[in-house]
């Protein structure tokens, strides 16, 4: 189904029913993209495991809004390279130079 594979980028909201945690993790990760993911749940073990299992650069847990200048924004897989914002964001515009001095 196109809407499950492609980036929609419009106000269409498809709902899919799932049964098990393993199933939904598999479906959620079955994409070339890896930018943002969101989930709602309350069991703390489940929450931690799902947050780790999602192959995304950013995960919102019990929130639908994750963008802020203080956190690293960016994705993995075909969603890109590097991070913007946060203390990490400035590194994208810096070179590291190592200086070895004999005294």
């Amino acid at each position, binding site marked *: 189904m196109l809407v499950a594979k492609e*980036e929609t*980028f419009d106000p269409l909201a498809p709902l899919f029913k799932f049964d098990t945690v393993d199933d939904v993790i598999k479906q959620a990760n079955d994409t070339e993209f890896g930018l943002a993911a969101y989930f709602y749940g309350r069991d703390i073990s489940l929450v931690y495991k799902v947050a780790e299992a999602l192959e995304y650069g950013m995960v919102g847990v019990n929130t639908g809004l994750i963008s802020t200048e203080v956190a690293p924004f960016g994705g993995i897989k075909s969603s890109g390279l590097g991070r913007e914002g946060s203390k990490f964001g400035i590194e994208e515009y810096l070179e590291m130079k190592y200086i070895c001095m004999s005294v």
Partner: protein
Amino acid sequence: MILNDPSLLHEQCYIDGLWVSANSGETVAIANPATQELIGHVPVMGAAETQAAITAANKALPAWRALSAKERSQKLRRWFELINQHADDLALMMTTEQGKPLAEARGEVTYAASFIEWFAEEAKRIYGDTIPGHQADKRLTVIKQPVGVTAAITPWNFPAAMITRKAAPALAAGCTMVVKPAPQTPFTALALAELAHRAGIPAGVFSVVTGDAIAIGNTLCDSPIVRKLSFTGSTAVGIKLMEQCAPTLKKLSLELGGNAPFIVFDDADIDAAVEGAMIAKYRNAGQTCVCANRIYVQAGVYEQFTQKFAAAVAKLSVGNGADDGVNIGSLINQDAVAKVQSHLADAVAKGASVVTGGKPIA
């Protein structure tokens, strides 16, 4: 569009501290996507003007990077303050050229400014390292230096924030930058340039070039002077740019497409999940890279969630983003309308049912 400060609306590009037209004099008309009304014209620039902006950025680099971090920080701070002072005008300009509701545009201006505030502060915290020597007479240090001349290619969905998220860290680090904004949303970018100018950011440090996307993009990618490219947009274009930047081994930041899953487990707070899904799905009419693309709901709460979510969706007000109470503004163009219809038709053909909506409005 009636601005409090009409001098924020520029129909020329900002290169090397000056407002300039295309060498050819050619311009392109920019229309409001909600009403199709003409907003104004911007220059159709190409390789030569882009090259001039790169040359200016290179010329400005030594003095800009030689400033103390605090001096750069103060100029960025001033830029941040000016953006906030003119937030109403910037928001109206953004809604007029992009379509998002005014309240969202106002939110984006604050968000855009926040990157400048943040990196004005971070400019002073670019720390290096010392390493214990490997021999008794050796002293090892690691310093951080600006990459140099950088370029940014930015999208239409966040006309202000995607520019400041790149320009603020670049300028804070001591880099200079040439920006090519999205063809659909040049006026917000040019207004940011006007405010950078007023903030005292020197000529050539931040330039904005509008026009022929391919010619400008090629010039930025091919230039050996440009040491880094930051792009936000589609994965297909990101791959193309990466290929084009390979011969000059540019550093790259690529913020590309998403396909965000939104998962609701049986033990979730369903009301909170509905509220979160509304934000994650419908921000900017679904036109953001982090928008919920696929909503997965566990069997035990599927009916309950669907019912509440559909009720919330049915309450959304669709219209011209400039009008009061509108939650969903215009999509950016007819191609976007056609895409949503093709995705919907495909899903229905494969067994999906439409719970609410399902038709274009106007």
